[in-house]
């Protein structure tokens, strides 16, 4: 399928009806978050086929508006009409938004890293593949088609896990995914080209134009004003939550856009320029920058304000981190630092704020963490010490004892600033601190920064708003991770910086199509480790005892492992959902008891009790989601319950196996003993489940639950399903125990729990979740079982079993780490 056809195929949805009105109408949409008004009385209409650029400074309210349109947030007031139908906010949700034809590509990517590209397409649009069993192929084709349509020659393998793709490729996948929806009426792109290079940006622009012609309305948010000017037919400017300009693109040139966005900032611009006329004499040299960060060595001195400019993704935050690490004593190539540094992050939630604490504790932690370990803390003294700093950042005293999360973003940022200023660090590192902060607070920040520099500190400031660099004494222009130009003093005007930044980009080497990741042995090796370990173990055993290498021997060795294999498969699905099940072994024991006591005597009742038990297991998942209790604790409590029920039913081992079950255990299939068949069956069933749509959904929840929920999947349902599967495997393990031993013992299942966790980890599934590797886990379980046998054949005392198990666990994980590091 060659590209032009693909593009034609994709770009031909049915043309809109001739007399169609606007596809989107907003009337007086208002939204507040606590004291901050994020959107105020927004009203506008968009016609089908319009390309609208939405611009505004950080914190202007664009993201909030997009969240409302996408169904993630609900407005406090106002109406929205989509294609003539009014939106019922009581029932609006991301799924409903998608049904109405609104698709959004977020700035924070919402892909599930451990799922393949094709599976990510599935998760967003489950119905697109029909009901076929070959759904993988369908979605791979879908993914390929849409990727090619937008970005020809992208070379992205739809079967590759998204986590292995470069960030530019991931952005391409997200965009392709959103545009693949046949119901698409309104496509919203939030900073779509932030990670794309020139060629791909142009591809995207062409695609947007094509879709617009076909009737899809496109809203895109961007800080790249030249791009907006080139692409949009109409421009909406937001400032402080309001819509301040709504004009045709031809009527607004870039400077006018800036003025509309900045508004009062333009006035502050004047004051800024006036204030920065005050010269500061640089103090001692505090840091030296050399390759790889700067081709020609640079010296940074106290009292200076250094700006890190350049387009997003040029490496400024990485430089700040390196500087922070170097200041903390770690050696970093290219940075030598002789002073301590304090860091102020703009990503408040992810890197800044300690959510359980109040304002005071958040502010003082900087000083405390860098102080002596056994320093005695006195709350009253803390308060007295912190008070002046909090006052200096204009934080009202009555808020100082409040929980940090109750503050607005701007105020939270002030606390982070106070934290940095409170330490004795000579260097202050600012990582885009004014992101999402309103103008008045920004003013205070500039004042603080000036004061800090005036007090002799070195301020290194990365900002995504070029206008802020006017505060700086020197501006370092970053591109591809290093400093390309230094602009000083008057030369560092906003225009100069912007044009320099763009010039760098245009002059950059033409980007080549990202190649496919090498899929030779190196790529496969981690997955093969469990199988290789198993093979080695078995080879050793066979070498020591030839009997072991016969079917008879295999049957014996495998027989002991059957219950563990099943329990490990169950645990695998739970770990795939990023949780840990401490009750799975006890549940297997309960199934063992039920199937050896109730089942033989009264089969119908026995089956019923087994089914009820399984239902109870699934309900655990529901309980965890409903009450937000961690799985590890719920399953721990549940393990007591399963054991208690089993013990109440059968205080002493005994019972008998139903005839059909015992026959299964001793049977053969095509000459292969039942034990081996059942292990292979476990692996096969687990692999089937994993390869089915179900598996993709479960792994998706493990990888990125928020994205899944926003995609319309129910977390509760997913949890119930996950635990139902785990319970089913554990139940089968119990049945196997009954079959093999023809009796039951409630204590026999307990030891499998921790071993199952070990098996899962040995088998290659990260405890962080999102991965399910049936073959690996089965090999892992078999390996752990065989260790005992191997040591027996080596005539090593069984005392060493445990140490060997522990060593194997650590060894395999170390090996996997080493492989992962080498790949980077």
């Amino acid at each position, binding site marked *: 399928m060659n590209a032009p056809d693909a593009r034609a195929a994709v770009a031909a949805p049915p043309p809109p009806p001739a007399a169609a009105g606007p596809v989107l109408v907003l009337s007086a949409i208002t939204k507040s978050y606590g004291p901050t008004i994020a959107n105020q009385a927004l009203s506008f209409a968009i016609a089908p086929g319009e390309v609208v650029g939405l611009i505004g400074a950080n914190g202007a309210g664009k993201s909030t508006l997009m969240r409302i349109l996408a169904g993630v947030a609900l407005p406090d007031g106002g109406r929205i009409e989509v294609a003539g139908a009014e939106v019922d906010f009581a029932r609006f949700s991301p799924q409903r938004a998608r049904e109405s034809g609104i698709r959004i590509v977020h700035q924070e990517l919402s892909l599930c890293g451990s799922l393949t590209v094709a599976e990510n397409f599935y998760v967003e649009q489950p119905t697109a593949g029909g009901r076929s069993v070959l759904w993988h192929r369908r979605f791979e084709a879908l993914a390929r088609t849409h990727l090619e349509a937008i970005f020809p020659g992208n070379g992205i393998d739809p079967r590759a896990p998204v986590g292995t793709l470069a960030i530019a490729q991931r952005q391409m996948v997200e965009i392709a995914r959103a545009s693949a929806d046949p119901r698409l009426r309104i496509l919203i792109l939030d900073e779509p080209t932030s990670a794309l290079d020139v060629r791909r940006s142009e591809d995207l622009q062409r695609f947007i134009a094509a879709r617009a012609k076909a009737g899809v309305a496109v809203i895109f948010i961007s800080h790249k004003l030249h791009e907006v000017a080139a692409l949009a037919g109409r421009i909406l400017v937001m400032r402080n939550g309001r819509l301040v300009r709504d004009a045709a693109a031809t009527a607004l040139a870039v400077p006018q856009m800036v003025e509309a966005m900045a508004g009062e900032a333009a006035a502050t611009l004047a004051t800024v320029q006036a204030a920065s006329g005050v010269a500061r004499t640089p103090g001692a040299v505090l840091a030296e920058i050399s390759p790889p960060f700067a081709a020609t060595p640079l010296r940074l001195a106290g009292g200076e304000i250094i700006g890190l400019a350049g387009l997003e993704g040029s490496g400024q935050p990485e430089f700040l981190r390196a500087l922070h690490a170097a200041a903390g004593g770690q050696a970093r190539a290219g940075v030598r630092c002789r002073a301590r540094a304090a860091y102020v992050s703009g990503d408040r939630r992810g890197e800044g704020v300690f959510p359980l604490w109040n304002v005071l504790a958040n502010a003082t932690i900087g000083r405390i963490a860098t102080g002596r370990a056994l320093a005695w803390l006195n709350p009253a003294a803390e308060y007295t010490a912190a008070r002046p700093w909090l006052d200096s950042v204009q934080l009202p005293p009555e808020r100082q004892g409040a929980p940090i999360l109750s503050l607005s973003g701007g105020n939270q940022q002030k606390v982070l600033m106070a934290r940095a200023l409170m330490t004795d660090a000579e260097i202050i590192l600012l990582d885009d601190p004014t992101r999402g902060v309103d103008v008045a607070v920004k003013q205070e920040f500039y004042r603080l920064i000036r004061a800090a520099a005036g007090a002799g500190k070195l301020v290194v400031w990365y900002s995504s708003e070029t206008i802020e660099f006017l505060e700086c004494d020197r501006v370092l222009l970053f591109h591809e991770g290093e400093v390309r130009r230094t602009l000083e003093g008057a030369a560092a005007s906003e225009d100069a910086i912007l044009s320099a930044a763009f010039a760098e980009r245009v002059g950059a080497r033409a980007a080549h199509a990202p190649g496919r990741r090498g899929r030779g042995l190196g790529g496969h090796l981690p997955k093969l480790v469990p*199988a290789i370990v198993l*093979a080695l173990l078995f080879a050793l055993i066979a070498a020591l005892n030839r009997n072991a290498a016969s079917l008879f021997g295999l049957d014996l060795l495998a027989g002991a492992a059957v219950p563990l294999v099943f329990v490990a498969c169950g645990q695998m699905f739970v770990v795939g959902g990023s949780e840990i099940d401490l009750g799975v072994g006890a549940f297997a024991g309960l199934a063992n008891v039920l199937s050896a006591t109730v089942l033989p005597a009264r089969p119908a009742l026995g089956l019923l009790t087994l089914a009820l038990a399984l239902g109870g297991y699934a309900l655990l998942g529901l309980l965890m989601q409903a009450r937000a209790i961690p799985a590890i604790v719920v399953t721990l409590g549940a393990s007591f319950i399963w054991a208690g029920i089993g013990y109440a039913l059968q205080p002493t*081992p005994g019972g008998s196996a139903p005839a059909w079950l015992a026959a299964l255990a001793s049977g053969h299939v095509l000459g292969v003993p039942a034990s081996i068949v059942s292990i292979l069956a476990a692996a096969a069933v687990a692999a089937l489940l994993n390869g089915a749509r179900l598996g993709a959904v479960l792994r998706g929840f493990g990888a990125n639950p928020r994205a899944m929920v926003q995609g319309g999947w129910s977390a509760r349902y997913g949890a119930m399903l996950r635990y139902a599967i785990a319970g089913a495997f554990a139940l089968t393990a119990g049945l196997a125990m009954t079959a093999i031993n023809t009796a039951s013992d409630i204590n026999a299942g307990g030891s499998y729990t921790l071993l199952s966790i070990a098996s899962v980890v040995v088998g290659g599934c990260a405890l962080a979740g999102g991965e399910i590797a049936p073959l690996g886990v089965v090999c892992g379980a078999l390996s752990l079982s065989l260790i005992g046998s191997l040591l027996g054949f080596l005539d090593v005392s*069984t005392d060493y079993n445990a140490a060997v198990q522990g060593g194997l666990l650590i060894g395999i994980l170390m090996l996997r780490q080493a492989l992962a590091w080498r790949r980077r």
Partner: protein
Amino acid sequence: MAAFSRRWLLALTAATLALAAPPPARAAAPVIALSNAYYGNTWRHQMVEAFQAAAMAAKKQGLISNYIILNGDGSVAQQMAQMSDLILKHVNAIVIDSASNTALNGIIAKACAAGITVLAFDSIVSAPCSYKLNFDFTGYQATMTKWILDKIGGKGNIVVVRGVKGSAPDHDMYASQMAVVKKYPAVKVAATVYGQATGSVAQAAVSNVLPSLPHIAAVLAQGGGDDYGIAQAFVQYGGSYANKPPIIAGGGSSNFIHWWAAEAKKNGYTTISMNTTPGIGGAAFWLTLDILKGAKAPNYMVMPVATVTAKNLAQFASMKPGTIVSPTYTNAWVKAHLLHGK
């Protein structure tokens, strides 16, 4: 996985399956193996030592060509793996002190099918093909309980300390004790706790409940070292038990016997101790050897227990601390008492 790794796996599997080989011929003099589920307490230590002593003697006399001892960690999974090992090593006989009454039946059946003689002792199994050498848990507990309840005059409060939760011996012993208690309506069970046949656990369990209980006249137990733990619990509690400890059912541990002797000297304390003897390890060995040599034995045999009363208390005064009362059983004894029926 891609085709590449699938091919690897197939190759590996094919290669290993192709290695099927017939088992080698057996050695002339037999090899006897001991599969002991748990090595974690004194009783088990002594039992394994008894087996080893007997085996070494037999090996010296050329009666066996070798012996193997495998100790587990108490889990069924590990003992099953050990049994698989022994089967693959084609030993002639396996003597097993099992982790579970039922969970090893499957592997034992496989052993019998492979022509291996299996003798289960102490913690026996329900597999039909295995010989069983058991203690009469029910019988001796009934005797002991009756003696103790008679001693307290048939009335008063007692505490019952059970054994390993969920195990067959615990179930049998408890049932037997309760059957006797029922016959004394004036005796009240004030509390039932689990001692897990371990001194420290029994001590903690009794200490926990003691303050909430009325005065206790006697304590029933199951042995395995719990007797000394129970005694310590009462000693540490003090109070009304300071010079008049309750009658504690002894489990044959030397620490308890020493304590009993001291108490007897101090205030005439008296009790009874009956215990299963770890010497059964040796008895089981000789029994198995005799069966291998062709002796006929019943499928189910019963070992006697050791009894300590005030009368023979002095005999045990020189026992080393941390040991359990047990005679050494010789081959002659086995021939006389087990093979020719009782």
